């Protein structure tokens, strides 16, 4: 049988069209499964629910942050799946390597967005910013591992920790209110990007709240290889407390250089500015232990008095025995707990469509993460959507697991309480 070329073309076009139509519409319908409403990422026959993970698995951010954080999420869901999943549904993670590059993140997002119910992870501020408008258009929830305050405004962003901005405010609350230092001379060194700007905003709010005497502000570029100018500038200003919104290598460079030129103020490190690796450096470890605090969040590693920590350590033994103490692992694990809470609520409502998930998220109110992090709050207005305003000030101690020792306990400063988003 011969088909005339024109006809063959028509048939071909129709076939393509049909495939396209199936692709576009097929997964958009409600395909039963009892009374459970589903759309994307839920396979009712295999009883799985797929979640997307966008994280750097290669490049410089991968080893220190991307990989441990993702392992935290994996470990938690391994445990969930082992105990029967969520209402019998097993969680499947679809992971994509973003290389911490916004463009790659966007293309990763596009690739898998129709395969997943929500994103259980998007790591990084610039990367997450890049998918904010997309997720709003696709009505898809994104759990973001970033503490950037701006993202609290976005209705589809699920945040976990206390934003950077509030970290700074709480740190100075600790210094002024808890330690009783009146009108301390303070300074800040911040990275020349969005992260640094967030820290700077918090610093300025703290100045107004606590009557700080701001004597020095300096900035550095991520590419800088010498920090003498910044250190000398702060030294000349005579600041007693210097806040560092930096990355670990820069924090180390600043503290080391300042010490070398005879300047040893009290350093307060934004949570991402510290990494355990810094303690390997001869000389720097003692400086850090004596002169630096880290402001952050979460139960100290190995503190089994916290039920969530005990559970996490057990799960690590079962599913990821090689894991070293790591704050980012803990973050990922906690993040997964929040994702679980959203999913669980949606399943309870018999609606795991994207609309159903958003609904579940908005009605979540409080999520207890077993004390790993303070109880997290969610809501629909920007101010309610800041999951937590609590922080802990830690000292650095290489003898304890995770290298951080809580000084202040968990608290919310008066300034952070009032901050508007």
């Amino acid at each position, binding site marked *: 049988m011969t088909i005339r070329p024109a006809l063959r073309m028509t048939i071909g076009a129709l076939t393509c069209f049909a495939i396209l139509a199936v692709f576009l519409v097929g997964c958009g319908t409600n395909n039963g499964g009892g009374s459970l409403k589903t759309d994307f990422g839920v396979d009712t026959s295999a009883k799985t629910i797929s979640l997307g993970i966008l994280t750097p698995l290669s490049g410089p951010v991968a080893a220190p942050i991307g990989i441990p954080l993702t392992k935290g999420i994996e470990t938690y869901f391994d445990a969930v799946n082992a105990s029967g999943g969520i209402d019998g549904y097993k969680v499947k993670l679809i992971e994509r390597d973003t290389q911490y590059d916004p463009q790659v993140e966007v293309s990763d997002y596009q690739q898998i967005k129709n395969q997943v119910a929500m994103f259980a992870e998007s790591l990084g501020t610039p990367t997450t910013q890049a998918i904010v408008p997309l997720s709003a258009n696709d009505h898809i929830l994104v759990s973001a591992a970033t503490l950037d305050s701006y993202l609290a405004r976005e209705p589809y962003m699920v945040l976990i920790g206390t934003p950077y901005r509030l970290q700074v405010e709480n740190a100075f609350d600790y210094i002024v209110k808890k330690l009783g230092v009146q009108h301390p001379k303070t300074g800040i060194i911040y990275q020349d990007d969005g992260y640094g700007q967030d820290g700077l905003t918090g610093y300025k709010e703290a100045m107004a709240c606590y009557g700080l005497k701001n004597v020095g502000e300096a900035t550095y570029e991520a*590419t800088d290889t*010498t920090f*003498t100018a910044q250190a000398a*500038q702060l030294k000349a200003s005579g600041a007693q407390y210097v806040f560092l919104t930096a990355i670990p290598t820069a924090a180390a460079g600043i*503290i080391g250089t300042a010490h070398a*030129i005879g300047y040893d103020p009290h350093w307060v490190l934004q949570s991402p500015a510290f990494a355990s*690796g810094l303690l390997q450096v001869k000389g720097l470890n003692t400086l850090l232990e004596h002169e630096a605090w880290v402001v952050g969040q979460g139960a100290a590693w190995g503190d089994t008095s916290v039920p969530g920590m005990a559970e996490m350590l057990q799960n690590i033994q079962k599913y990821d025995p090689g894991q070293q103490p790591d704050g980012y692992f803990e973050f990922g694990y906690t993040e997964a707990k929040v994702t679980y809470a959203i999913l669980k609520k949606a399943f309870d409502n018999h609606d795991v469509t994207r609309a159903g998930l958003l609904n579940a998220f908005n009605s979540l109110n409080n999520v207890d993460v077993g004390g790993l992090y303070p109880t997290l709050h969610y809501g629909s207005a920007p101010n309610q959507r800041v999951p937590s305003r609590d922080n802990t000030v830690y000292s650095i101690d290489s003898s304890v697991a995770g290298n951080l020792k809580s000084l202040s306990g968990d608290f919310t400063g008066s300034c952070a309480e009032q901050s508007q988003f």
Partner: protein
Amino acid sequence: MAYFIQLAFAGLAQGCIYALVALGFTIIFKSSGVINFAQGEFLLVGAFIASVATFEWGLNFFLAVFIALLITVLIGVLFERFALRYMIGRPAFAIIMITIGLDILLRTGVVMTGKANERPPATPYGIASGVNYGGVHFGENALWTILVTLICCVALYIFFRYTRYGLAMRAAAIDQEAALAMGVNIRLVYALAWGIAAAVATIAGIFLAINVTTFDSTLGSIALFAFPAIILGGLDSIPGAVVGGVVIGLVQLLTQGYESHIANFVGIGFDTITPYLLMIIILLVRPYGLFGTRKVERV
């Protein structure tokens, strides 16, 4: 005043590092007409190997440095032998690109070891050692950086001036064909150039790593500031590279230290462009740099 001297001193030390990187550029350019965009990664690889040798293999600092030198020199020479040699006569940016290819390979190689973050540098002295004088701290590392740069310059001077291979390299730089005709082994010249460039880069990398306290895979980006240095000094001038490096280091540190006083006017990060602005001004006034030679074009 102490503030100024502190900055100037740090600028000098930083400038010496630029000078060492710039030396590498210039030596390769002079002998083979190639700008090696991978020069910065030699710093990274050198510092990285030295660090791994000290901390993972538990070697003595000097042994670690020796191993680092050995490996980077080997990489440089092998790359020249097995890649660049086939590129002779190709357009300039094909050559630029192939060195960028090497750059990517080296950096990714270091990243892939998974040990490149917050890397402690190999160092023979504590982070704060040095002498204080008049409220200014003269760090031990900075002093050694300056001293070793000086030693490198003198050694290279003697090498080029008085040794057979040095003379061969100079001859090749002036006129390749004539040098060939006079029996100079051009291949050896190229290999030497790459070897020397890799070695000075490694030295620079080790000092730089100590200077920044900890380092990661972005250490090599410093080479970008060596470009203004070589242009400033003149692409083909070895003393020019050194002077250019030091000038760029000083200018950068001083703008960095004083820019906050004029922040409203220049905004943030002005220090990242001052070296380039300086370079552009120089190019407009003296396109061949302060010490470079003017080329006469022929049809």
